[in-house]
């Protein structure tokens, strides 16, 4: 601002306009003109990803969710080994103990059951179970984090496979176009007409229950959304002027891909993946809840919720703890996905 100097011609004009407070010539020191300096940009042009990061970090909800998700994922990995119990080890004398954490009694972790009796003193249990125990005396802290781990694993693998299939299918469809595209799109149209929950349930019924079948059943219909997103984006981009302009200016294919196509397709892909993950977590929990989930002694959040629901009247903690964890995970993924969508939408660039 301060370095901008009027040249002599402008100065004369100013004087002739007869301004009340007129700057005199000796107030200014003319800056020597340097043509090389003028061509320089004040700051390096922000790359697409840097800008997206900055936008994401301005979104408080997304940042908090990201941090919480990192904590929850870390807990799902280290939580099961934070005490001496394993997720499958049964200890019948210690069955149905309410949660107790030394120092957190005011939060309800006081070891008292629904009738207000401290089960720990009554039964003479020395060790504190942080999230309580189930009807076989298995430590719920270990089981909840192990369950979170399995639920996250299923969701991540399903989302990743959806991504791979969707990108390949959508890419081929958009790249070849014409009759192939038309045919592939008809298949998609029919697949989207089928409620995917029904397909998932039917497939689980004929497959052996387990993590692999759940993942397989979820990707049978799950990739369709990703394929549609990728195809739509590619078709849209192929005909855009900036692609043509860049090509005209002599950009190589790799530059076109790196600088123009990829950043524009990556955004929607990432956002779609982020929305797939909570959906997958939901489906897994849903399947477990109607009795089509994992087999004992394995635990997922859905299995724990189902077990907890059966004992809701006498031992509400068994339901409440996994319910809170799954809700937290879902909320965080949804908020983060929202934030990413806002941050990665190139149309919102100013």
């Amino acid at each position: 601002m301060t370095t901008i100097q009027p040249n002599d011609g402008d100065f004369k004009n100013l004087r002739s306009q007869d301004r009340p407070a007129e700057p005199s010539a000796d107030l200014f020191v003319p800056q020597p003109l340097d043509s090389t300096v003028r061509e320089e940009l004040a700051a390096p042009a922000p790359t697409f990803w840097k800008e997206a990061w900055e936008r994401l970090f301005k979104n408080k909800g997304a940042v908090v969710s990201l941090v919480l998700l990192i904590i929850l994922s870390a807990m799902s990995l280290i939580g099961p080994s934070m005490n001496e119990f394993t997720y499958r080890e049964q200890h019948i004398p210690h069955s149905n103990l309410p949660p107790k954490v030394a120092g957190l009694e005011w939060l309800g972790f006081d070891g008292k059951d629904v009738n207000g009796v401290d089960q720990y003193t009554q039964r003479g249990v020395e060790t504190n179970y942080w999230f309580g125990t189930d009807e076989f005396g298995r430590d719920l802290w270990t089981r909840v984090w192990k369950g979170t781990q399995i639920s996250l694993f299923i969701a991540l693998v399903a989302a990743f496979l959806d991504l791979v299939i969707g990108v390949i299918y959508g890419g081929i469809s958009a790249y070849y176009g014409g009759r192939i595209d038309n045919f592939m799109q008809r298949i998609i149209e029919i697949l989207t007409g089928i409620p995917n929950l029904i397909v998932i349930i039917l497939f689980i019924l004929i497959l052996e229950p387990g993590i692999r079948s759940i993942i397989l059943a979820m990707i049978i219909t799950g990739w369709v959304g990703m394929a549609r997103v990728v195809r739509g984006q590619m078709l849209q981009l192929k005909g855009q002027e900036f692609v043509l302009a860049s090509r005209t200016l002599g950009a190589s294919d790799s530059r076109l891909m790196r600088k123009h196509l990829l950043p524009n397709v990556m955004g929607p892909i990432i956002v779609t993946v982020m929305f797939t993950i909570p959906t997958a977590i939901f489906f897994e929990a849903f399947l477990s809840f109607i009795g089509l989930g994992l087999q004992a002694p394995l635990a997922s959040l859905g299995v724990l919720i189902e077990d907890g629901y059966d004992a809701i009247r006498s031992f509400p903690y068994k339901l409440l703890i996994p319910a809170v964890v799954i809700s937290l995970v879902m909320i965080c993924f949804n908020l983060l996905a929202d934030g990413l969508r806002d941050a990665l939408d190139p149309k919102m660039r100013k």
Partner: protein
Amino acid sequence: MKRYLIQRFAYAVITLFIIVTATFLLMQLLPGTPYSNAEKLTESQRAILDAKYGLDKPVAIQYITYIGNLIQGDLGYSFQYQGRTVMSMIGDRIGPSALIGLQGLVFGTIIGLVLGIISALRHNTAVDYVSVTIAVLGMSIPSFVFAALLQYFIGVKLGWLPVALWENYQSTILPSLALSVTVIATVARFIRSEMLEVLGQDYVTTARAKGLNESGVIWKHVIRNALIPVVTMLGPLAVSIMTGTLVIEKIFGVPGLGEQFTLSILVLDYSVIMGITLLYSALFIFVVFVVDVLYGLLDPRIDLKGGSKA
């Protein structure tokens, strides 16, 4: 328009046919038998039962018979209840499901619309934040978790409403409420972003510039235009209601289709599983078809022939 309708209809029929075929084939792959006491049956008893249900014939014949019966509205017999047709079971159980489903849908849509509209009109105020929070919670918390919590806190702890009995109108409140949560959240989010988009349109500025008072602008221009795309939400909403009924009926002991479905899965009563699957799929396809047609009628900007948005 006519061509478009015929085309859409053809798609709906093809999709349904594929679902029927796929369901039939999947059912053939199911492990186990549908007879409840299979290990006690002698060879000859089994043969009699197989002949009774037509299971002794080749798969192709079974398939043709099934399709033929289906066209006549016959879904076969249930295996778990002696001599009951699937049709009559669906007939008995569709009532409670439809009741809580529709209640949830209507209640959820109204509340969602109100929340979303207020939220958009008070954009970036405390009201907006509260309703956005409600929407995020509703989207994120699985409906069955919410149902279980509702049952525990309102049914067990407070004792305001029946926990899991199906006897009077009060019994329908909690299941409907649990179903409506996802609807509220979806509708509120959707209408909010639609409203915000419409509020930024030139024709809204024009309406204000020509001196229309604010309520006129909001009611005549903004809400009317923002409501049109809400029709497209009917498909996803129908799905969420159907998904919801599967578990929520189990939780609240509603004698509906969803409860029957989960029961039939456990005992592998596959004629019932197929019947309910087909019913749900047909319903879904019908809703999608209606939405496509309705949307074209409501918004003249949509070009039905080309199938693309103008």
